[in-house]
C-alpha cells in the first residue's frame, strides 16, 4: 500500500471520530461541565475547559487512531517490510510540521488562557493581597470594608472575608458591623470580593459552583472575585491539606435574592452584636495570640511576643 493510502485512511477515521467527539463534548457534556454556571467566573471557567476539550479530544483521538492503525496494520504477523535506512530516521517535513503544529497549539492555549484570566478578573483564583485584574467596584468594596455600617445595596460589590482555621471556615461581613458567622450567604447579581486568610496553617477556600479557589494563608489577604448569576446553594470545601480533619472541612453556602440577603445580613448583625463586640476589629489578616485558642486573635501589627510554649507545648522534664 502506498503512503497516501495509509494516511488517507487514518485521516478519514480521525476526522469522523474527532468531529463526533467534539460535537458530543460541546453540546452534550459541555453545558454540564464543572463548575457549572452559577457565577460569571464559573461560566468562564467552564467555557475555557470546554474549549481546551475541543482541542484535546482530536489530539488524543489522533494519537490513538494512529497507534491503533499501526498495531493492526503494521504488526509482524502481517509482515510488511519495515522501512529502513535514512528514509525512516527522520523525515524533515514531518518533523517541522509536528513542531510547528504543537507550538502553535500550545502558544494559542497560553494566549487564550491569559486573555481569559485578564478579562475574567483573575478567573476566581486567589490573586494575593494586591490584585491586578480587579472588576469595577472592587476598590470601593475594599474601602467600604473599613466602614462597618456601610451595609450593601444592589449594584455594589460586596466584601466578604473568609477565615480558614483548623478545621472550619468562618465568614465576616465587614460592611455589616464585621459580624462573623459560619454561614456563607451571598446576594444574587453582585460582584463579590472574597478576602481569604487563615489563622493557622494554609487552607484553600474552594467554592466549587462559584468557580472560586483561593489559598488561605496566615497573615496574607488573598483576594478573589466572582459575580453571582444564579440562585441556589453551593459547596465549600477546603482544597489544601491542613491536617487531620482536612477531609471534614466543608460546608455549603447560598446565593439568595438581594432583598433576602439584606434582611439576613441585618438580622444576623443584630443577633450577633454581643459576640461581634468580643471579636478583634476587622482587619485583612490576624495573628494568633501566644495563648492560641485560649486567647483571642489580634489584628496584624499587634503580635504578642513569641513563646515557645505556643509552638512546642510545655517543657517536659528530661526523661
Amino acid at each position: 500500500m502506498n503512503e497516501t493510502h495509509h494516511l488517507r485512511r487514518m485521516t478519514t477515521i480521525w476526522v469522523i471520530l474527532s468531529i463526533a467527539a467534539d460535537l458530543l463534548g460541546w453540546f452534550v457534556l459541555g453545558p454540564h461541565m464543572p463548575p457549572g454556571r452559577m457565577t460569571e467566573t464559573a461560566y468562564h471557567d467552564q467555557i475555557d475547559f470546554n474549549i481546551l476539550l475541543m482541542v484535546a479530544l482530536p489530539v488524543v483521538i489522533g494519537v490513538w487512531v494512529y497507534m491503533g492503525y499501526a498495531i493492526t496494520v503494521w504488526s509482524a504477523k502481517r509482515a510488511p517490510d519495515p522501512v529502513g535506512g535514512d528514509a525512516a530516521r527522520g523525515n524533515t517535513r514531518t518533523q517541522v510540521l509536528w513542531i510547528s503544529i504543537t507550538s502553535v497549539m500550545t502558544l494559542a492555549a497560553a494566549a487564550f488562557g491569559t486573555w481569559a484570566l485578564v478579562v475574567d478578573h483573575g478567573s476566581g483564583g486567589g490573586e494575593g493581597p494586591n490584585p491586578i485584574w480587579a472588576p469595577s467596584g472592587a476598590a470601593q468594596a475594599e474601602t467600604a470594608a473599613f466602614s462597618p455600617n456601610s451595609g450593601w445595596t444592589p449594584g455594589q460589590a460586596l466584601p466578604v472575608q473568609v477565615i480558614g482555621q483548623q478545621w472550619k471556615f468562618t465568614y465576616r461581613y465587614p460592611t455589616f458591623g464585621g459580624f462573623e458567622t459560619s454561614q456563607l450567604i451571598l446576594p444574587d447579581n453582585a460582584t463579590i470580593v472574597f478576602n481569604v486568610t487563615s489563622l493557622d496553617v494554609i487552607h484553600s477556600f474552594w467554592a466549587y459552583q462559584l468557580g472560586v479557589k483561593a489559598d488561605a494563608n496566615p497573615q496574607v489577604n488573598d483576594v478573589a472575585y466572582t459575580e453571582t448569576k444564579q440562585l441556589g446553594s453551593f459547596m465549600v470545601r477546603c482544597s489544601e491539606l491542613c491536617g487531620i480533619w482536612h477531609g471534614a472541612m466543608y460546608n455549603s453556602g447560598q446565593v439568595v435574592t438581594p432583598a433576602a440577603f439584606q434582611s439576613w445580613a441585618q438580622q444576623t448583625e443584630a443577633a450577633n452584636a454581643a459576640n461581634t463586640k468580643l471579636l478583634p476589629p476587622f482587619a485583612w489578616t490576624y495573628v494568633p495570640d501566644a495563648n492560641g485558642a485560649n486567647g483571642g486573635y489580634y489584628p496584624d501589627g499587634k503580635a504578642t511576643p513569641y513563646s515557645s510554649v505556643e509552638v512546642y507545648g510545655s517543657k517536659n522534664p528530661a526523661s
Partner: protein
Amino acid sequence: MTISAERPVATSGGATTTTERVSWTQRPGIWSQHLGTAIVGAIVGYLLGHWLGNAIASSYPYIQNSGQNVIAVTLGEIFGVAGWLLGIGALNYPLAKMAGRQPGKEVDVQGWSKYFRYSTNHKTVGLQYVVGVLLFLFTGGLLAMAIRTELLNPTTHYFSADTYIKIVSEHGTVMMMMATSIVVGPLGNYLVPLMIGSRRMAFPRIEAFSFWVFTAGYMVIFSALPLGGFPTGWTGYAPLQTQAGPGMIGYLFGFAVIGMGMMAAGFNMAVTIINYRAPGMTWSRVPILVWSLLATSALLTLATPTLFAAGVFGLLDKTAQTAFYVNEHGGSAYLWQNLFWFFGHPEVYIMALPGFGIVGEILPVFTRKPLFAYKVGAAGMIGVALLSFFVWQHHLYQSGINPDMRPLFMLTTELISIPTGFIYLVGMGTLYKAKIRFEIPMLFALALYFNFLIGGVTGVFLSDVPVNVTVHGGFFVLSHFHYTIMGGLLFAFMGGLYYWLPKMTGRMLNKKIGLWHFWTMFVFFNLTFFPMFIIGLLGQPRRVFTYAKNLQGLNDFSSVSAFLLGFSFLIFAFNMVYSLWINPQKAPANPWDSRGLEWQTANPVPSYNFERIPVVLSDPYRYSEPGAPAVADLGDAGLVHAAPQD
C-alpha cells in the same frame, strides 16, 4: 585507584594477585562489613544520637503531645544514618585517606553475598538498586491499598482521620522518593557503562554511596511512622510542617538523605556519560536512554540541592528554632512552597525523562526500524530539562504568590509540552510502516504512549489558570500525575525490566505470566485512575477521608480496580520469583535481536564489561538497513555484526 573493574585480571573468585593489603572489612565471610554490620551501626548510631540529644538538650522543648525531645530524635536519625554508612563500609576509604593511611584494597567479592556488601561494581549496584526500588514500590503500594480501602465508603471509616492522613502522606513521600531513582539507580547504573562502552562508572565509590544512602533514606522515611507519622502529604507545606510532631523530622531528614543520594547518583551519571564514552561513541550515536539519563542527571544535580537546603531549613526550624518558614518571626511559609516546587517541578521530569529513554530503546528493537527523529528526541529531552526550572509556580496559581507572574508561568508550562510532545513524534514516527513484534517490553512501551497522552493532555488543562481554579487541589491533579508517573515512568520501568533483566540476570522472564501481568496492570491502572478525573471534576479534593455521597459509586469503582491493580503487582512479583528461581530459563545472549552495545557483551557480563574498550562504529538503531555497519568493533571478541536482518 584500586577499583577492580579497571583491571581485567585478578577478578575471578575474589582472589587477588597483587600484594596489596586486603582489609578485614573486605574479606569474604561473616567477619567483615555487610548488611548485618550496617544494621548494627544504624541501631547503635540511633541510640547514641538519641542519648546525646537528651544529654545536651534535656531542657530543650519537647514536641507537643509526643513526649519526645526534638534534638534527641534528630540526632538519633543523623547518627543512625552515619552508623549505617559506617557499618556498611561506605566511609572506610574517605576516613583512611583523611587519616593519611593507605586505604585497604577493595575486592570485587563474588557470589551472592556481594549483594549485601558495599560493592563498587556498577552491575552489582544496579541489581542492588532493583531490589531497593522494588522494596520502596511494594511498601508504598501497600499504603495505597490502605488509602483505597478507606475511600470505599464516605461514612464508614476503616482508619481514624489521624491515621489516614499519615498513611496518605507516607504513601506519597515514599513513592516520590522511589520514583527519583527507579530508573537512574537500577537500569542507569547497570546499563550506562555497557551502553557507552565503558568498564565502569566514573566514581564507583560515589555510586555505591548513592545506593546505601538511598536505603538509609528508606529507613528514615519509614521511621516517621513509629515517631507518630506526619500529616502534610509529600508536599510538606509549612506552617503545617512547623506544627507537626516528630514524624516530620523523618520527612525532612528523609528528603535530605534521599537528596544526598540523588545528587551523588546524578553527578556520577553525568560525569560518566560525558567522559567515559568509548572511542567513536559520538553524541549523535549515544543511545537515547543515555541522553535521557544525561538530562535527568542534570536535573538531579541542579534541582536537588534546593530540596536538600529546604529540608535542612525545616530541620533547623524544628530543632534550633530558626524561623525560615515561620511568618511571625520574619520567615515565610511561602518560602517553603517556592523552594519545594523549585525542586519539585524539575523532580517531575526526573520522573518522566528516564521513561521516555526506555521506550526509545525498546521501540526500534520491536519495530525493526531506526528511531525516528532521534536528534529531535534528544534535543527535546535537554529542552525539557532546561525549561523545567522555569515553571514551578504553576503549582501555586491559587496560592496568592505573585499573581502577576501567572501569565508567564502559564506560557512556560505550555511551552514545556512542546518538547515533551517530541517523545510522541519519536514514537509515532518509529511505528510508521513498522514490523511490530508484541513482546512484553513492547507492550509496556506502547502502554506508556497510551497513558502518558492522557497525563500530558490533562497537564495542559492544569496549566490553564482559569481551568486550574476548578481542578487544582483535587482528584484531577491526582489522576494527572499518576497517569504521568505510574502510567509513564512505571510502565516504562516494567518494560525495561522485561527487556534488560535477561541481560542482567541471564534468565528470561516468563512470557505467559508477563502477559497476565501486563494486561492486568494496563487495564486496572486505567480503571483505577481514569474515574479519578471525573471524581476531581465533580469536586473531590485530595487527601480527604470522606466525600460527597453521590461520588461513592465512582470511588468504589476506583477502589476495586485499585485492589486488582495491586494484584497485578503480585503477578509481577510471582513472575520474578518463578522465572529467576523456581523455573529459571537461560536467556540467549541477545534474546530480542537488539543492536544495542549492551547486548554485544559476553553473557554473563564479565566484571570488567569489555575485554578491550570497544570502538563504536555506528548508532544502535540501524535496523532493516542492508549493509549497515556493526555497531562496534569489540576487539578480541571479533567484529560483532548487526543483528540479523528480518
